[in-house]
């Protein structure tokens, strides 16, 4: 085998400082050039090691430790922070509570009822866009649907949502008092003043359409008068 094939093995053996393999040894026995190279490599590593040893194992100055001790005495003692073990638990619990509270209060305005019994007082005029009204009604529970004539969400992005509700005439006071009861806690949402679906609304009054009689005038007179009026005058 040519010498260049042993080159890498030769360097690796010298680098590890181990004994050459049997194959390499037999080649080194036969090849004087490789033997010299191997000796050079070993010498190189030995020089490197000697230099490193000299650098790293030099005598430590006797003054090092006293100097360090003197500096340690000058140093303020490292402050030990006494944190009881349960502090972490308390902090974790407080964090969880804070997160839950923030989430709860963020959701709360949507659930709460607007101020001042204004639910019934904001009666929206009849020009509510039909799509909005229908969409809102579809979202309400079926049991309550018959009582809403229309519902419009006034401000979608506001923190407190204001809702206007169209009510049958004369129902405003009843709904107002129910909302007040609800706030006081004396009423529940189930007790909404509602009449059962299918029942007619008692307060609604239907009046017959009244048309006043029209006075009829003969067409001829009108045309005659108008003809005489429209006739051009000659001076």
């Amino acid at each position, binding site marked *: 085998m040519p010498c260049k094939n042993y080159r890498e093995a030769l360097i690796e053996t010298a680098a590890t400082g181990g004994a050459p393999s049997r194959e390499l040894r037999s080649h080194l026995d036969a090849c004087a050039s490789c033997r010299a190279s191997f000796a050079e490599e070993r010498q*190189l590593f030995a020089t490197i090691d000697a230099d490193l040893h000299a650098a790293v194992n030099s005598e430590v100055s006797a003054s090092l430790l006293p100097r360090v*001790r003197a500096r340690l005495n000058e140093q303020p003692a490292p402050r030990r922070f006494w944190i009881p073990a349960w502090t972490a638990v308390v902090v974790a619990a407080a964090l969880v509570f804070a997160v839950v509270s923030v989430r709860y209060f963020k959701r709360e305005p949507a659930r709460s009822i607007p101020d001042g019994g204004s639910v019934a007082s904001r009666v929206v005029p009849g020009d509510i866009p039909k799509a909005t009204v229908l969409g809102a009604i579809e979202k309400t529970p079926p049991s309550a649907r018959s009582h809403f004539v229309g519902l419009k969400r006034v401000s979608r992005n506001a923190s407190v949502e204001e809702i206007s509700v169209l009510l049958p005439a004369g129902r405003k006071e009843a709904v107002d008092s129910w909302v007040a009861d609800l706030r006081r806690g004396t009423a529940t949402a189930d007790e909404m003043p509602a009449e059962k679906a299918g029942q007619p609304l008692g307060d609604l009054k239907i009046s017959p359409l009244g048309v006043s009689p029209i006075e009829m005038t003969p067409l001829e007179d009108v045309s005659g008068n108008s003809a005489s009026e429209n006739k051009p005058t000659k001076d």
Partner: protein
Amino acid sequence: MQELVLIQPGGIAEDELAQEQAQAALRREFEERLAECGPLAFRVARGVLRNSADAEDVAQEALLRAYRRFEHLRDRARFRGWLVRISFRLAIDRTRSSKRREVRETLWSQSAPRPSTEDLAATSEFQAHLDRAMEELPEKHRLVLLLAAMQGHTLEEVAAMLGLPIGTVKSRLFFARKQLAEKLRCHVKTIEKR
């Protein structure tokens, strides 16, 4: 008539007392390690800086830093490896800053007398090449090389100190030595030819 007032010694709060006791215990524990590990810090710094005075300064700084952070070290068995890394890091930083300083000084004193080429060769040309080759090594290889070169450090001890598997230490050492040899080979031949 003179009025006498009985002054009772103020009782030190229990937690303060406990804190002082803990600090004293910490100091004792550190001092026990100081005698054993002080030379180690110095040698690591010496291996990087190649200068005893600088190495002593760095070792001192490393030991002070170690003391300041000693109580944060949870696994005290790792103190040696921890100190070695602090010392190594500080020594590397010092080398870099001194190089910057050298560059500045060279720019300012261009006319300063320089040693002749022959003088350089006569002193330690090989060592200069070796220093340069060492600086070019990856830091992880360099640290292993220095620790393995220290007297009384087996590869197993180096591995335990650095918290590395023995195989990793062996391979780092091998590559470091091989890399150094590759960089120095041509210089050795040049020097020998003179």
